[in-house]
């Protein structure tokens, strides 16, 4: 008898969600067709921001505050993952590639690594003009790190290491300090002085890239720190 009831409830639930989708579509239908006027403003004033692609301009200049908080969120999750962490033996999940798999590990690393490095640097540099930027570059760095970890070139350590902590915190830290210091050059918070605008952005972008990469590695391995040397403990 129970499964009739289950099926009945399932049908009701599905019907409810269908109703909800219907109303949401109804609402969305009434949305006005033309773009809101501030999006046009954004595209016009992108020149002032010193960055070509409007998206990056919005991301860094107009709504830089959101990006700052976003970077902090990434960093917080890293802290959370490290704190939660897993017990020691889980750091060698079964999916690790066995070291003697000559066929696959070595050539893969030898070829892919430089390619991934150049692509990430390209992304970083392209950010100003086309879509791209610190996060995309950072993800690629992270992917590199995970690959090394899987190929057992990089080992997860439980030991606290100041280097990794600084690495993790460098991105948000520099973003914050740079935008904070700009106050003393009588600009608003997060407003970079015109003269050295692009250089500053570049510094921030690189630091954020590096720490994003490190965050992704930590997130995947949930270790305290990673190192290339095969340490016993």
């Amino acid at each position, binding site marked *: 008898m129970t499964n009739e009831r289950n099926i009945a409830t399932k049908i009701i639930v599905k019907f409810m969600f269908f109703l909800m989708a219907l109303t949401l579509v109804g609402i969305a239908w009434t949305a006005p067709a033309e773009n809101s006027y*501030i999006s046009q403003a954004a595209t016009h004033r992108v020149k002032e921001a010193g960055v070509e692609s409007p998206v990056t301009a919005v991301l860094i200049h107009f709504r830089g505050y959101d990006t700052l908080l976003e970077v902090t969120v990434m960093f917080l999750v890293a*802290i*959370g993952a*490290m704190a939660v962490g897993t017990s020691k033996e889980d750091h060698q999940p079964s999916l690790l590639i066995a070291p003697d798999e000559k066929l696959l590990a070595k050539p893969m690393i030898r070829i892919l690594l430089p390619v991934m490095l150049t692509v990430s640097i390209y992304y970083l540099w392209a950010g100003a003009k086309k879509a791209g930027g610190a996060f995309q570059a950072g993800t690629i760095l992270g992917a590199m790190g995970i690959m090394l970890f899987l190929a057992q070139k990089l080992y997860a350590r439980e030991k606290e290491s*100041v280097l990794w902590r600084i690495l*993790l915190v460098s991105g*948000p830290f520099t973003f914050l300090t740079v935008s*904070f210091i700009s106050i003393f050059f009588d600009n608003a918070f997060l*407003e970079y002085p015109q003269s050295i605008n692009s250089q500053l952005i570049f510094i921030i972008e690189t630091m954020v890239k590096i720490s994003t990469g490190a965050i992704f590695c930590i997130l995947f391995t949930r270790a305290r720190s990673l190192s290339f040397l095969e340490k016993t403990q």
Partner: protein
Amino acid sequence: MSHSMIFPVVVPLFSAFFIFALGNKVNLLFLLFFSLSSLGSVLFLLQNTLSSGPLKYHIAGWGAPLGIDLYNDGLSMVWMVGTSVIFFLILLYSHSYWKSKEYPQKIKNAFYPLVFALWSGMNALFLSSDIFNLYVTLEVLTLTAVPMVALSNKKAAVLASLRYLIIAVTGSLLYLLGVAFLYVGWGTLDISLLTKLVTPSPLSWGALALMTIGLIAKTALFPFYFWLPPAHSQAPSPVSAILSALVIKGPYYILIRFWNTIFLNIQNPMIDYLLGFLGAIAILWGAFQALRQDRLKLLIAYSTVAQIGYLFLFFPLAINNRNIWEIAIVFALAHAFAKSALFLVAGNILCLYEKDTISQLEGSHPYLGPSFFIFGLAGLSIMGIPFSGGFVGKWNILYTAITTQQIGWILVVILGSLLSYAYILKIIKYSFSQKQWQEKKKNPITFSMNFTALLLASISFIMGFFFLSIIHLISIGSPFGE
């Protein structure tokens, strides 16, 4: 354009990053320095607001429609000051709590940066006047609170934090959908602009509905309360104090802010009555469940569920007299102080016993004397005995309920306070029993732990006396209209 507005966000964030970098070498000196500087930044802003009224700050120099603005008026100021004081005291408490509870270093390294990040997230939430930015700050809140719950390294705790994460993020995403509707409809994300532009239309109704559900889920009102008790009771005591007192008040602040700005003229009494009704159920259900618990922290958690019910009682009452919101704020603050004191006392008790079952409190443990006194003092505020913040709320709910002929709420308040008497007395009763203890080992509850809890409890108790000054502070920039 004074930069004092951004300090409350930046300084705690800086401290978070520094402390994270310091790792194991964090000691009392650093803690004091960072927490005092964060508190100082907020007080500096308070001093500015008092002198020059509500402040608006364009981040990165761009105007409102394009960039993000920070807006600070009496309402946000009161919240920031209240939360900062609580943060400061809980940080002090937690320092000696970890030591006496011998928590692993790993926990401390994660706890302090998360707390400071949460502090800056809360300040950012109170200051921001951009609805998408509010989404991001809500996420900051969630993503700092969830790992903190998981800190106590027990399966139940991690499960509770996961459940908390899923519910909270669902809420945020629904809120984000509401933001999308508003942005599509009126093209701007800034609250002050939206208040002028938003007109009653299916888009705004949909946005209101979605946002309300999102924020209710995060404030743990009745239907969405189930994640709160396990999360707040499993978490270590300072964390559950922060969660119960502060984190759930963030979304509530946003609701009040929207109710008085964006949705001012498109809300309808039906919604207010619905929220009030849910609040009433929360009061009765939470208090009833609290009475049934035999674990102290679960009891306090369910009492939070009940007190949140009170907060939502203000919606139907505020239909046509909006200055009742000031009372809601004071009530929420009083609850924050009282609830944090209660959880800190629970922490004290957990330092002595490994489990916090109530029945074992039978004999009045010599070390628990002051803790029971603090519990009593904070309990008075929860019960709404005169001159506590709770009483202020109770009095004005009754007053407005009678003037606006909404008799139903009076009944709810009566039953609620009766039940609250019952579950507070359930604990106080044990503080006088006679069983003698011969405890030789050093008293794990240090003076600082007792003092911070006492400070929190006494603030909540005598809040009735400086109620008028709080009202005066709130009314800067008249958030609730003349």
